[in-house]
């Protein structure tokens, strides 16, 4: 059982998928000799050759669009977009084509592609390298949106995404890429693409989030435990389709919920979860829903980014507000 960081686990999953399935191709900018700007595709060119690991011209729209053509022809392309700030150009291809090819041809043509892109702030990156734009993708019918928060989940979810018969946007939190190292099972086991992961069980309050902020959720939960408050921590991981059941079941138990994400507040995907709680979850609620998120501002450059990111302190404060209600 090798120890791996998230980015190494991504690399293992890519290699495993390529080894298991000749249809799997990697394409993107600098994914070949360079192994990707974060080294997620390190060694794959040497191992699988230039017909399966393709360095593309610097053209994000073409990368996404070429994947649509490849996928319709039966390949399983896995594209890398270097940073989320550069991935927005691909939305035309994802929204107008990848996500609707199956539907608009009534199943004649399909689009089993994965578009991977790093996301999120916290690594002092340049401008346009720290966005959390998941909500731009979650409102696209026909598209799955996945965001792992640990090496093993990164491995299992990426394998599932590559094997899935429909398009998947796979977001990789940059500040988790090398944050932790854990033993991972590189045995080809995929994880489900429609299930939340309960990272910690508790009866007093539910913390729901995904991606990088799961670290702060866990850290807040530990501090709460020291005070005798047990928080249940849920990593949504697969935003679309949303496993509302797991969240609602948790809140049925705790009656209190703090939703956490790095992306801006208004129209963020947390709002969809809040709507679920205000709908089918309403009668379980003992306190108003709290959201701890990035602000409705441009994600700041590095000097201010720690003030933008949801911190364990902000999460704790929100938990205390929910606990203050009867």
């Amino acid at each position, binding site marked *: 059982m090798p120890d791996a960081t998230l980015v190494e686990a991504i690399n293992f999953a890519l290699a495993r998928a390529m080894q298991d399935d000749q249809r799997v*191709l990697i394409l993107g900018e600098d994914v070949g000799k360079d192994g990707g700007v974060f080294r997620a595709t390190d060694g794959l060119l040497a191992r699988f050759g230039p017909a399966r690991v393709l360095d593309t011209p610097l053209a994000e*729209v073409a990368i996404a669009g070429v994947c649509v053509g*490849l996928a*319709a022809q*039966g390949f399983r392309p896995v594209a890398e977009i270097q940073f989320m700030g550069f991935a927005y150009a691909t939305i035309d291809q994802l929204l107008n084509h990848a996500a609707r090819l199956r539907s608009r*041809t009534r*199943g*004649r*043509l399909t689009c089993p592609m994965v578009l991977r892109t790093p996301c999120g702030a916290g690594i002092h990156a340049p401008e346009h390298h720290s966005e959390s734009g998941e909500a731009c993708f979650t409102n696209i019918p026909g598209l799955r949106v996945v965001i792992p928060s640990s090496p093993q989940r990164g491995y299992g979810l990426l394998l599932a995404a590559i094997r899935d018969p*429909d398009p998947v946007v796979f977001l990789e939190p940059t500040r988790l890429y090398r944050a932790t190292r854990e033993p991972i099972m590189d045995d080809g086991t995929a994880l489900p693409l429609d299930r939340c992961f309960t990272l910690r069980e508790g009866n007093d309050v539910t913390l729901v989030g995904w991606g990088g902020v799961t670290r702060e959720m866990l850290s807040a939960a530990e501090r709460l435990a020291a005070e005798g408050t047990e928080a249940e921590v849920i990593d949504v991981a697969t935003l679309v389709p949303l496993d509302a059941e797991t969240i609602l079941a948790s809140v049925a138990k705790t009656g209190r919920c703090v939703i956490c994400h790095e992306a801006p507040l208004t129209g963020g995907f947390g709002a969809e979860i809040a709507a679920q709680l205000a709908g089918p979850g309403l009668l379980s609620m003992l306190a108003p829903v709290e959201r701890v998120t990035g602000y409705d501002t441009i994600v700041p450059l590095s000097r201010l980014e720690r003030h933008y990111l949801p911190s364990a302190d902000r999460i704790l404060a929100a938990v205390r507000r929910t606990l203050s209600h009867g």
Partner: protein
Amino acid sequence: MTTTHVAQFSVPFTRHLESDGTAVGALPPFAGNPVDLVPLYRGMVLARIFDAKAVALQRTGRLGTFASSLGQEAVGVGAASAMAADDVLVPSFRDQAAQLWRGVTPVELLLYWGGDERGSDFAGPREDFPISVPVASHVPHAAGIALALKLRQQARGVLCIVGDGATSKGDFYEALNLAGVWRLPLVVLVNNNQWAISVPRSAQSAAATLAQKAIAAGIPGEQVDGNDVIAVRERVALALERARSGGGASLIEALTYRLADHTTADDARRYRDDAEVSTHWHGEPVARLRAYLVSRKAWSRDDEERALADAAAEIDRAAETYLATPPQPVWAMFDHLFAALPAALASQRAQAIAGGTGDA
């Protein structure tokens, strides 16, 4: 200081039939016997009658917005007739002439324009793409398909058709550039009908030709008379042959004219003179080939009457079948979204079924 010319380019233009149908020099081998051109003529007539029927259906509230290809039939028929059955067509929204030639049925086309996704579930050319509405966004798909064919080492080619407006877009260039550097078996054909809705070719690009946009991508670019079906077929066939045999991608600009409105939702009199349109009826592709066939005694008045009647009967039958086709059940919008409907969508599907038609 020294200044030298490090690269020089030219853009060839090909025409075989003058606008009055007179042949210029020797025709290509496939056109040696005029009788062999009759299927091309019939193909153009079928497209023209299909367009007229579709517009009539729209005007009487029985079809949605529709984009006629009036005057551009030689682009579609010439190009499609140059394709092998196992080549792949990636069309734009004005390419019904090519699609009909490829075996997409008039019923399927009417279903699509009449608001039914089943119209893109072609029974014939299963690998051909459905039409692309967002302009130029399909050129990268064509490059991806071409890459798939190349990776599988198949001697097949991809034909992608775009309009003149598409050549102003980034995705057009991104795909062309990638196809050039990867030597993909791709032919991009520009139906330059001179108008992108209300914007004329002169306001679309300062480039002398659209074909020269190939030069920046490092691939051959050429112009062809898009109202000359013989020339279109010849040039597209050569480009596809080059593509299938490893010679890489090409760009062909077909010069033609949009004789109709942009779509049935458009009124071209707002932005162009009827006089301009009238002048372009001279040299239109159907009359041009007919004049040639008649001059070679390969076509008669009887042939013409029979051909028109046959095509009209075929299209009328298709229209009847389309109009008699019931809509899909409401759950169809869910059942083709993913390979298997996620549990999260089950309640919405049930709601849609319970909600019926939404008339309540």
